[in-house]
């Protein structure tokens, strides 16, 4: 059978609508469609399921997943102890809850975890993380509200080194990336951590709300400029939002998604799987 070497306009329109509807964004959608057209021109396709697998293939290719830095089994790299994770992101995305989930999972994997409550600004932020520390049975370093977040981070890392923690997770206050002084504060927290452990933080985890639109790209850009983001977590994917904006971010900044949040309980965290993610974009 001679295969088709171009895709029908109608199919392309449907694809464009599905991708944009998933928050993939115009530019990235146009790029995906171009890649598919090039691929089809070269390899041809016989039926819709072949076309679908070409589509899924091209989208997966955009997602960055390097095996050495995935958290399969919640293991941490040998020789990096304590392994320090700094959690950042704009307001209300799910940083504190994600930290609770990470604490639970690392503990289940046999790691000694220590939490740092470096959000000393938002009402009851320390109380909130303390409840997660109680729930997961993981120790927490905290100071009174209004304390310098850099001081809490410093305190936490020093304490983690002293007690032989395997993993240290530092919570920070939500902040909008266009607030220069708040982004500078984040840079300062990072430098303070480096004073204790020169190659820490080993992971700067930017948490994104799964229902955020194209502004997430700007968030990735600005947070990377301030602290060199090394991984993404996408939360609230248990709702109807698809989180497609991570494709635009992967395409532009090559930052890997490592975790997805699928609920509010400590068990509701999944290691990012690009096959499942691409499948869900089209459900």
């Amino acid at each position, binding site marked *: 059978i001679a295969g088709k070497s171009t895709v029908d306009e109608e199919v392309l329109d449907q694809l464009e609508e599905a991708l944009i509807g998933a928050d993939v964004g115009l530019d990235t959608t146009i790029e995906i469609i171009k890649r598919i057209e090039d691929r089809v021109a070269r390899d041809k396709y016989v039926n819709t399921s072949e076309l679908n697998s070409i589509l899924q293939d091209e989208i997966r290719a955009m997602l960055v997943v390097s095996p050495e830095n995935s958290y399969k089994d919640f293991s941490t790299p040998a020789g990096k102890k304590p392994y320090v994770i700094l959690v950042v992101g704009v307001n209300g995305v799910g940083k504190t809850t994600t930290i609770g989930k990470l604490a639970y999972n690392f503990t289940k994997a046999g790691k000694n975890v220590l939490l740092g409550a470096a959000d000393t600004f938002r009402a009851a932020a320390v109380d909130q993380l303390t409840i997660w520390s109680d729930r997961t049975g993981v120790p927490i370093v905290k100071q009174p509200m209004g304390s310098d977040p850099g001081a809490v981070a410093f305190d936490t890392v020093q304490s983690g080194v002293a007690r032989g923690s395997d993993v240290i997770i530092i919570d920070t206050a939500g902040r909008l*990336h266009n607030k220069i002084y708040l982004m500078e504060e984040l840079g300062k927290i990072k430098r303070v951590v480096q004073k204790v452990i020169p190659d820490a933080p080993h992971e700067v985890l930017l948490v994104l*709300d799964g229902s955020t639109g194209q*502004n997430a790209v700007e968030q990735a850009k600005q947070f990377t400029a301030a602290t060199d983001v090394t991984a993404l977590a996408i939360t*609230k994917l248990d709702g109807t939002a698809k989180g497609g904006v991570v494709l635009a971010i992967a395409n532009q900044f090559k930052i890997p998604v490592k975790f997805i949040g699928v609920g509010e309980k400590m068990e509701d965290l999944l290691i990012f799987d690009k096959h499942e993610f691409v499948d869900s974009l089209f459900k």
Partner: protein
Amino acid sequence: SLSERLEGAFKNLKGEAKITELNIAATVKEIRRALVDADVNYKIAKEFTDKVKDIALGTKVINAVSPGQLMTKIVKDELANLMGGTESSFNITGNPAVILIAGLQGSGKTTFSGKLANYLKSKGKSPLLVAADIYRPAAIDQLMVLGGQVGVEVYSERENKNAVEIAQNAIKEARAKNKNVVIIDTAGRLAVDEVMMTEVANIKSAVNPHEILFVVDSMTGQDAVNTAKAFNERLDFSGVVLTKLDGDTRGGAALSIKYTVEKPIKFVSSGEKLDTLDVFYPERMAQRILG
């Protein structure tokens, strides 16, 4: 800017020429692109630009105004019209007046409740805040801190796992203590969570609110239509609050929501401090969405 890009699309049109189907095609595409980039829902962006096209067709291009500028003006006016339109009131007469706050997780409801209490107090009301989020860790503590910061009492029942009861008891408390406005903060919930949507619908039927405000994060993307529709179907809310407008998101979700549920945007929140509650300005929002 959009008007510069539209200018480019119109570069061969001058003088007494009319806007026609031919010379408008590229422009309509640019406008739709700008809206989708701003997170306006894909389908709504198409319907909106079709409407703008109809308004523009046949319009004469006067010498003093460039076609690009004219087009931008039509788009901006139409956007502002869509988002402002109805004069929006705020019903706080009742014994007590009851305001129910609802929305997705993390949208800014608790912070907004504190701001609203502060605002109403400055208008001479005696508000009572109600901590009806029985799920989120330290939710009650959070509202109590905010209440403390603005000098407004917070009603809570730490041991009660029934949000409907807490809301009902709060109304009784308000009457006993001469509080004339009750602001009920509720837990963030997903529109697809049947149990939680039933809970908030039950709170509504139990306390009969004078105002039900749907609090939404202004950086929400294409999903804004789905959640607004679902919350409106269950609650028939009376107004929308857009939060985190101090960010740099274009905020197209505002248009998508207004277009879909046709409920007024009553307040905007543009900061974390409790004095940053603002009135919604449709023309400013239109300008922002267009970038």
